[in-house]
Every structure is written in structure tokens, then in C-alpha cells.
């Protein structure tokens, strides 16, 4: 993305490139199709009626949320294992974590709206829902750790360890919640994704949703990752300028 700054009259280059622009246009086109088809073109479900329309955005966003956290964990592992501790891995991990939190939030909100229609309640203490909620708070903690003050290396090291510990934590949480629900209340929660007989267009729309959300995810991570580098460099430059100013003060005295 290039624009001309009115004051300085020089071109400022942002985080956009030809690749992200093409990606962005594709993402907008596919997402527009998903919204139009999901809301208007696809038929009602036999069991769920119109409620099934939420599926076309809920399922892909849940899918992307999980993908995002896997990317965070893998990038963190690469950062730790790579000899040069390349900061690119840390930025991808952080950007993917942020986008993941956004998509888990969307998943939880759309899921509870769907639940309100099918179950009559916004929330059920179902293992999958509960684990997703824990995923949400865990990665909010991860993002908070990234905000801690310190050098870029400290941020990378701390957050990489947290991301890998989350890989230990989430299965334990999931298992204990499954175990808890199975021992006590026997009530089985209606699976909103089950009981849906999908025709060709419904399947295609869901599939387009997955593609569209994936494009959006890549676009967001690429831009966020570059923005993070800009922010780090800007901070660094601010520090350099301050040090230089202080040194000049010393000289003039």
C-alpha cells in the first residue's frame, strides 16, 4: 500500500505488496460469495431450518482458530530450535496468535448464537465448548506475555515457551473436562454440526467458507507480521534517537 504523505510529499511504503493485494481481492471475493450463498442461496436444513446458515461461518472460523494456534506453536518451536533464533519465526507466532484469538472469539460468539437457536441456551458445559473457552483465555495470556516489557529476544523467548506449554495444557484441560462431563451429568449435548444433511450447494458453500477464511487468515498474518517488524524497528529507532540526543547534550556542555 503506497500513499503520498501530504506534508512531506514523499511516498510511504506500508505493509502491502503485489502478493497481499491479490490475496486481499481474492479473500473479499470468496467471502462475499460465502455470505451471499450462506444467507440467501443455500436451502434450509430439514432438522435445523435456517439456523444451519450460521455453520458456514462458524465451522470455518473454528477451523482457522485451531490452525492459527498450531502455526503459533510450530513457529515458536522453530524459533527455539533454529540456531540463529530468527525473529521472523517470533513475529509469525505472535501475529498468528493474535489472529487466532480473533477467530476463537468469533467462534465462541457465533457458536453461542447458534446454540441459542438450537438448544435455547447460549452456553452448554460441553467438553468442546469448554476447551475452546480455555483456548481463548490461554492465548489472551500468551498475548499479554508478548506485551511484557523487555527486549525483542526476551519477548520471543518468553512467548515461545508459553506457546509450547499451551500445547501441554490444552490436551490436559480437554481430557479433564471430557472426564468430568462423562462421570457426572449424563446429558448429551446435541451436536450442532451433526444432524445436517448437506446437499451439493451447502457443501460447496462450507468449503468456500474454509477457503475464504484461510485466505483472510494468511492476509491478516502477513500484514500483522510486517506491522510488528515496523513497530519493533520504530521503537528501536526511537531509542537510538534518544541516545543520540543525550550524547549530543553531553558534547555541547
Amino acid at each position: 500500500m503506497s500513499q503520498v504523505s501530504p506534508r512531506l510529499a514523499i511516498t510511504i511504503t506500508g505493509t502491502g505488496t503485489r502478493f497481499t493485494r491479490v490475496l486481499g481481492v481474492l479473500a473479499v471475493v470468496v467471502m462475499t460469495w460465502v455470505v451471499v450463498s450462506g444467507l440467501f442461496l443455500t436451502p434450509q436444513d430439514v432438522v435445523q431450518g435456517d439456523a444451519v446458515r450460521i455453520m458456514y461461518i462458524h465451522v470455518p472460523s473454528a477451523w482457522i482458530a485451531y490452525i492459527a494456534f498450531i502455526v503459533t506453536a510450530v513457529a515458536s518451536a522453530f524459533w527455539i530450535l533454529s540456531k540463529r533464533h530468527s525473529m521472523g519465526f517470533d513475529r509469525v507466532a505472535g501475529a498468528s496468535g493474535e489472529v487466532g484469538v480473533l477467530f476463537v472469539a468469533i467462534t465462541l460468539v457465533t457458536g453461542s448464537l447458534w446454540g441459542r437457536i438450537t438448544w435455547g441456551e447460549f452456553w452448554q458445559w460441553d467438553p468442546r465448548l469448554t476447551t475452546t473457552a480455555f483456548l481463548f483465555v490461554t492465548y489472551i495470556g500468551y498475548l499479554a506475555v508478548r506485551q511484557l516489557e523487555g527486549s525483542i529476544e526476551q519477548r520471543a523467548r518468553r512467548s515461545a515457551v508459553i506457546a509450547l506449554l499451551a500445547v501441554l495444557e490444552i490436551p490436559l484441560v480437554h481430557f479433564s473436562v471430557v472426564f468430568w462431563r462423562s462421570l457426572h451429568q449424563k446429558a448429551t449435548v446435541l451436536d450442532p454440526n451433526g444432524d445436517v444433511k448437506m446437499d451439493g450447494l451447502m457443501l460447496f458453500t462450507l468449503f468456500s467458507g474454509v477457503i475464504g477464511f484461510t485466505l483472510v487468515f494468511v492476509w491478516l498474518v502477513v500484514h500483522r507480521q510486517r506491522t510488528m517488524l515496523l513497530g519493533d524497528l520504530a521503537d528501536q529507532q526511537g531509542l537510538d534517537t534518544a541516545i543520540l540526543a543525550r550524547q549530543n547534550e553531553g558534547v555541547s556542555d
Partner: protein
Amino acid sequence: MNKISGVRRVVGAVLIKDLRIEVRSRVVTNQVLPFAGLIMIMFAFALDNDDVLQRVAGGLIWLATMFSLVVIVQRSFAIDTSDGALDLLRVAGVDLSAVFLGKAIALTMQLLVLDVVLVAAAFLLYQVQVSAVGFVLLVTCVIFATTGLGFVGTLYGGLTAGAKGRETLLPLLLLPVMAPVLIAATRATEAAFGSGGAVTSEGWAWVGLLAVFAAVFGLGGTLAFGPLIDE
């Protein structure tokens, strides 16, 4: 000096240092124990029903333990970072895994004392009852749960040590991680108390989960603690 005995010496030294600080300052005895007791009394005010209290006693014990744990961990690392003790250990080339184990054992021992008091409070204030078999289950559950909590508390305490804003960050990080312990220890304790018609034998599976948790975070912490505070 071979490696094993060196590790053992560091673990012992750190453990004794942490316990000695406690014995001299008496912060856990004079402040955290009363705080935990106060939580138990406040729960009684809030719930205001003997049957309900008896039913939820197990959960209240573990919630009070976890809130107190956050306070203990914060203090323990505040002492270590305020006079640069952690940095000195690092400069001295001490094996940080051994430091982790020493601090985790010290924390577990303090939590054990805390839980003895909390269980006693539950007997006195909430009128819970326990059979002989239930008592064995309760003791096993407390041992495994406090071990697991000692490991995660030390691990995340080390992460936030010395960082600004750690007071608010530590609970945010710790509480979700401790959720499996809260679920498992509460169910095992309820089985021991027979709350809500729970059978004692149901509790042992939960103790197994607590053991898995302690093993996973014991291993994870031993590996991760060094990189975390090595800056």
C-alpha cells in the same frame, strides 16, 4: 563432583533457602493462612446454607488453595528478583533445572501445610465428614495436587518474575493452566467427603489425572525453566 550430586545439592540449597526465608519472615503463616481461612469464611457468608456448603466444600478448598498459591508464588519470586538472587545463580552457572525443582518442592511443602489447615477448616466450618478409606484418598489427592500446583506455580512465577505488571498477569496465566487440577482435585475431594452422594472409589481415577498433570508439568518445567529466566 558428578552431575547428579551437584543437582541434588542445588535442589537442597534452594529448598532450604526458600523454607528458611519463610521460617524467618512467617509470611505464609501470618498472612497467607489467615487469608485462605478468610476465603473459607467469606464463602460461607456468600452461600449461606449448610447443605450447599457441605456439598461444595471440596471445590472451595481448592479454590482457596489456588488463590493463595498466586500470592505465595508472587512473593517468593519478588524476593528472588528484588536483590538479584536469580541473576546471581545464573551467573554462578548453577543448573537452573535444579533451581526449579528446589523452588517447586518448597512451594509444594507450603501448599501442603496450607491444605491441612483448609481441610481442617472445612471440617469445622462446613461440617463435612470422611470415612477411613476416604481419608486415605484425601491425603493422596492433596499430595499429588499440591505437587502439580507447585510445579506450575514455580514455572509461571519464574516467567513473570521481574517483569512489570506481573501482579495482574500471573493469575491470568496460572488459573487456566490450573483448571485440570481444580476439576480433578475437587472431584476426588468430593468423593472422599461423599458430597452429593459421591462414592469414594470414584475418586481414584481423578488422583490418576492429578499424577499425570504433576508428571507433565514437572518434566515440562524442568526443561522450560532455564530458557524462561535465562535472559
